[in-house]
């Protein structure tokens, strides 16, 4: 009984001990918040990565790929059976994207991915990341007649952050063509006037020439005189398509020699990652270099040996935004059939097409690693690589895990510091209270009982500190976005910049197990650091203690 009474009396008079409660509280709260945010980021990233990649990727080592995807898909189905719920072939090649902004050519290094628009959205979250609501339902590589989202569909804010997408699509395309026509005519007129005025001055005339060429370069005028390569790839124009430009499967194919009308027809549609075409300004608004309806050029290698570089013109029809900048600034999606044709991946004799990889979706709860191993047994490893999405992003996921453990160790040191505080304070109390300990012993208190006072005291500090830390940490973790808003409002500074993270709110996930582990750790440290003082108090010799002043 005396233990409780004395613990209570000491607590009331030793406020310094409460200082260590505060440090335990702060340590626990920090750990809970940091873990919640880290878990949030990690979870966000994993769902993104998993959403971009399918469960399993079956691919060939060579850039030319393997023939007859249908046969492979049948074989995969036979090997893995019921676990498979969806498959789609893809072709991926490194390529270069060129587009013109205000007369300047911009070149980007990209990964050109041919996808089957009918089935691709079934194996991953691909469809979710598109900007046109209709494309999110079913992707079409045909240009839409406006209606692109000006509000980020993946954010929960209702702020219009993409005003530029308002007129995107056919209206934008028509307007651009018209503007270019007017501009071209004006230049033409200027040039004629200039030539008449001073035929001897070759300098200015040449510069105007360059200007005109620059303006024309990325436009449909280019298509009027296609190179031999391009002409072969761009199939004949379908007259019906011009009238119904939104029809995804009938794309404009200008017939060889005939002039294509860019105001009513489009090239093969592509969906570039949003990071390739836009940037976010300080106000949080997305600025676009290219809009749906604009034409771009892509240079990519053919399937032959050695590969040759070929170029073609494409029309942007939508943007892909996974919010993983690595993908958003790298991926460009095209229809797989067009890419196979352009790269010469279709065997002229058999008519069989080649693909680089097959994306596989497994049923909910299937063991990815097991299916992967099954497939690895069936298909020779020197020809095919089978990997799960985790394998693909292994180093990144491992890095995040490691980052989290290192951070946890560092944060636990904060609590350890609090532990040393408790140790020092308790030693002080033991020294200060030596005589009282002697008195208690002379009254018959056992060594265990005396030690118990300090252990109980430490336990109390730990529980109160960790409890307060738990409350503080959880309330911060759960309200982190309101707190962020408050801080931003107070300081006028952006604490969390969505243009860096591509998230609009700070993700935070509180794992009960992590919290439990933190609490147990904190209380353990508090009790642990009171063990030494407790032992010392327990071992005090009663007579010596009584003599102590």
């Amino acid at each position, binding site marked *: 009984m005396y233990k409780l009474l004395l613990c209570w009396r000491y607590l009331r008079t030793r406020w310094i001990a409460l200082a260590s409660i505060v440090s335990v509280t702060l340590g626990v709260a920090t750990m809970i918040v940091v873990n919640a945010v880290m878990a949030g980021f990690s979870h966000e990233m994993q769902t993104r990565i998993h959403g971009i990649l399918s469960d399993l990727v079956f691919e060939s080592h060579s850039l030319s790929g393997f023939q007859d995807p249908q046969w492979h898909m049948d074989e995969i189905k036979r090997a893995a059976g019921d676990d498979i719920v969806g498959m789609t072939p893809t072709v991926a090649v490194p390529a270069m994207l060129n587009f013109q902004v205000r007369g300047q050519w911009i070149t980007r290094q990209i990964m050109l991915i041919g996808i089957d628009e009918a089935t691709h959205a079934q194996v991953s979250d691909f469809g979710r990341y598109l900007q046109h609501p209709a494309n999110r339902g079913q992707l079409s590589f045909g240009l839409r007649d406006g209606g692109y989202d000006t509000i980020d569909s993946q954010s929960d804010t209702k702020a219009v952050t993409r005003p530029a997408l308002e007129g995107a699509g056919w209206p934008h395309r028509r307007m651009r063509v018209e503007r270019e026509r007017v501009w071209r005519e004006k230049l033409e007129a200027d040039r004629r006037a200039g030539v008449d005025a001073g035929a001897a001055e070759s300098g200015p005339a040449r510069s105007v020439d360059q200007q005109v060429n620059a303006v024309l370069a990325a436009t449909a005028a280019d298509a009027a005189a296609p190179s031999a390569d391009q002409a072969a790839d761009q199939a004949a124009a379908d007259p019906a398509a011009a009238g119904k430009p939104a029809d995804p499967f009938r794309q404009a194919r200008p017939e060889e020699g005939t002039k294509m009308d860019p105001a009513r027809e489009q090239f093969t549609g592509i969906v570039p990652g949003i990071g390739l075409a836009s940037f976010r300004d300080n106000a949080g608004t997305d600025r676009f270099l290219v809009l749906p309806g604009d034409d771009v050029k892509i240079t990519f290698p053919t399937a032959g040996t050695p590969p040759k570089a070929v170029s073609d013109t494409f029309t942007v029809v939508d943007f892909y935004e996974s919010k993983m900048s690595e993908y958003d600034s790298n991926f460009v999606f095209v229809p797989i059939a067009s890419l196979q044709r352009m790269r010469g991946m279709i065997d002229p004799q058999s008519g069989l097409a080649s693909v680089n990889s097959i994306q596989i979706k497994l049923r909910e709860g299937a063991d990815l690693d097991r299916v992967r191993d099954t497939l690895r047994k069936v298909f020779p490893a020197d020809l095919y690589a089978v990997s799960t999405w985790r394998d693909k992003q292994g180093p990144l996921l491992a890095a995040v895990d490691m980052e989290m453990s290192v951070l946890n160790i560092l944060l636990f040191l904060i609590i350890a510091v609090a532990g040393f505080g408790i140790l020092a304070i308790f030693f002080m109390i033991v020294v200060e209270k030596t005589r009282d300990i002697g*008195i208690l012993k002379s009254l018959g208190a056992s060594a265990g009982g005396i030690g118990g006072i300090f252990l109980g005291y430490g336990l109390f500090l730990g529980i109160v500190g960790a409890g307060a830390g738990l409350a503080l940490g959880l309330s911060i973790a759960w309200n982190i976005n309101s707190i962020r808003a408050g801080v931003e409002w107070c300081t006028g500074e952006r604490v969390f910049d969505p243009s860096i993270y591509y998230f609009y709110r700070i993700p935070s996930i509180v794992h009960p197990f992590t919290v439990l582990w933190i609490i147990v750790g904190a209380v353990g440290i508090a009790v642990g650091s009171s063990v030494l003082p407790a032992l010392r108090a327990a071992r005090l010799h009663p007579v010596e203690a009584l003599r102590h002043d």
Partner: protein
Amino acid sequence: MTETAPAILRVRDLRKNYRSGETTLEVLRGVDFDLATGEFVSIVGQSGSGKSTLLHLMGLLDAADAGSIELDGTRIDGLSSSRRDRLRNTAVGMVFQSYHLLPELDALENVLAPLMVRHGVIEWLRVRHQARDTARALLDRFGLGGRLRHKPRQLSGGEMQRVAIARALVTRPRVLLADEPTGNLDEATGAGILDTLCELNRADGLSIVLVTHDAAVARRADRIVRLAAGRVDDAPLSSDEAGQARHAARRKAG
């Protein structure tokens, strides 16, 4: 004399050395000492003669190097530490020169402290009313009925010493061991404390060992034992015939 009365404390050939490095200080070199039931004995001796050491050994606060101590005919030296703790709590009451009260507790709580040490929390809830009554009655008896809620620092030396005596008695010990209880007090207050001790000895038959180096104080006891050179000096230099006669007479009467 007192041979007929059963000895409540019997100390035989008790030795205690203090070692510090190479040198060994022999403080007690074979002390023989008996305390009869209901007897009031003073131990006197020069400073450093080992009076406090002897008292601590009898109060189980320290362990002897050799010799035996019997309490009520059972040896209490060499017991396990838990049984020593138990005996210290139940059989022995100790009073010290500098009171040794717990500063965080008030007078009543200080008196209750040994009972709190004895009982666990649940048991305490059961016995606390009775314990409080006992403690209050003791403090009342020592004239401290109005100071129950005062902290030690709010009390005078004499009052603190009386609280300490009440604390020593609340467990109903077999012997009371007092180490210079009047050492820090002025003559009048010290006399008051001694009166209290005499009263307890006479009225309650409490066996008391009183350590002092004040001859006048020692004379209040039934018998005086002199400690010198680590032994009990058998030649009683200032034996108080009257006191011994008084004790013998009371034994016969009781």
